[in-house]
């Protein structure tokens, strides 16, 4: 991946990143800005740490999504890139998951994505097409313990990604999902919360990865940047696993 402004790949593009103030979202916004795009960081949390324009957004609320798209429409007249990175994780088995928890995680991870895509379509059409990048997870393929509802939302994201790619491909709208493995963000710290933080588990976690490290938000932004740009113009409907080789392996015995 080339990463310099000398080779800006997203000049003149209009992009919005939901969850744009999160660990991965921030890195994506920063990268898009460096690549020359006009970037909106849309998040329920109130402070954008990147050079992107901050937009207050609750992805579960249709009015909030509509207001965001209206504003982008008013200011830019179109949209080229939508990244759906807003997401939460609930660390529990189904037994410990209340119906309210279940509904909340589906509202953010799945319904929020549906709403953002649905209301982005007219702006994407005005741009003559565009690129939607959803956040799935390797957890949509195989399970981590105690993450049942989260795994289920990511499986739904994968299926929705393919379905939208199918429906909107003819309008030159590409839809892909990025499926990260372990990426060092606040979400991952939360996941390790009960068993210690990622630093104390650093060596153990790294040792299980064929590349002997876990991912960084910048690693993920590299892939998102490629999918957003014209080099990826034939890429659609795919689930792009990015995990340092983790899931190329059968479970690794500790010898």
């Amino acid at each position, binding site marked *: 991946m080339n990463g310099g402004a000398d080779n800006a790949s997203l000049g003149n593009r209009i992009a919005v990143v939901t969850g744009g103030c999160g660990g991965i979202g921030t890195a994506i916004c920063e990268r898009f800005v460096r690549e020359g795009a006009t970037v909106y960081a849309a998040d329920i949390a109130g402070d954008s740490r990147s050079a992107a324009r901050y937009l207050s957004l609750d992805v579960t609320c249709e009015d909030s999504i509509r207001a965001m798209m209206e504003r982008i429409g008013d200011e830019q007249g179109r949209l080229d890139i939508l990244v759906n990175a807003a997401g939460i994780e609930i660390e529990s088995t189904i037994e410990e998951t209340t119906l309210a928890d279940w509904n909340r995680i589906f509202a953010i991870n799945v319904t929020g994505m549906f709403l953002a895509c649905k209301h982005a379509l007219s702006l994407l059409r005005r741009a003559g097409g565009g690129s939607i990048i959803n956040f799935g997870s*390797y*957890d949509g393929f*195989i*399970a*981590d*313990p*105690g993450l049942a509802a989260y795994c289920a939302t990511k499986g739904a994201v994968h299926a929705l990604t393919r379905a939208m790619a199918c429906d909107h491909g003819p309008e030159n709208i590409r839809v892909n999902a990025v499926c990260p*493995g*372990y990426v060092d963000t606040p979400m991952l710290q939360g*996941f*390790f919360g009960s*068993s*210690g933080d990622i630093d104390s*588990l650093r060596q*153990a*976690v790294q040792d*299980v*990865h064929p590349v002997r490290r876990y991912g960084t938000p910048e690693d993920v932004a590299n892939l998102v940047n490629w999918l957003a740009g014209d080099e990826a113009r034939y890429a659609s409907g795919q689930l792009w696993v990015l995990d340092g080789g*983790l*899931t*190329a*392996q*059968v*479970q*690794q*015995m*500790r*010898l």
Partner: protein
Amino acid sequence: MRLKGKTALVTGGRQGIGRAIVERLADEGARVMTCGRAYRPSDLPKEIGWQVADVSDGASVRKLAGQVRATFGGLSILVNNAGVQIEKTLAETTDADWDRLMGTNAKGVFLCCREMIPLMERGGSIINIGSVSGNTADPGLALYNASKAFVHGLTRSIAVDHGPAIRCNAILPGWIMTGMADAAFALASDPDRAKADALSRHPAGRFGQGSDIAALAAWLACDEAGFATGQCYTLDGGLTAASPLNPGLF
């Protein structure tokens, strides 16, 4: 007795998974023949046919097909189970290793299918033994892993090209306690600890038995599985449903 009136050839039935499949198909009423590179095992039930055959050798497999025709007339079930494992990375693998491993695991399946398909009647079922290692890698088993991916690919091609007359599926075992699994554990610095750790990675709480694989083979062989074809079915006690990292075990 779901296989009454059917005839079956199981390659590599001397021991392990192959033997379990042989015994199960016979229990279900099939007439069964099996083979291996050496003489008939003394404990093989007498109603089971035995042929000395090396599946990696074209002439040997043609001879085997002749014996199947002479004994059964035709063939309803073919189980490609014969397999070998070499514990090496790609860099360590010699040309001779390639011939031995790919000869049995890949070419052997190809030869047996090519020679037996003409003997198979409508409703025939081919069952290939692949492995979870053909989808996700076990360390230090480079060619073995790749040979099983070949088996999975060939399974789909046979199903597509030779349906509807013949169905073809693969079973992908996880850790099944046979000589082959013990050889893999022997690679560990502390085989007992490695075994205990591996066990804790199985949601089913145990390793597989040959009889587990045989139970699925019997179903795939029988007419109840009439709509199942072209698939690779994993049977691993839940092993590969979980992340390789499995932080629950830290």
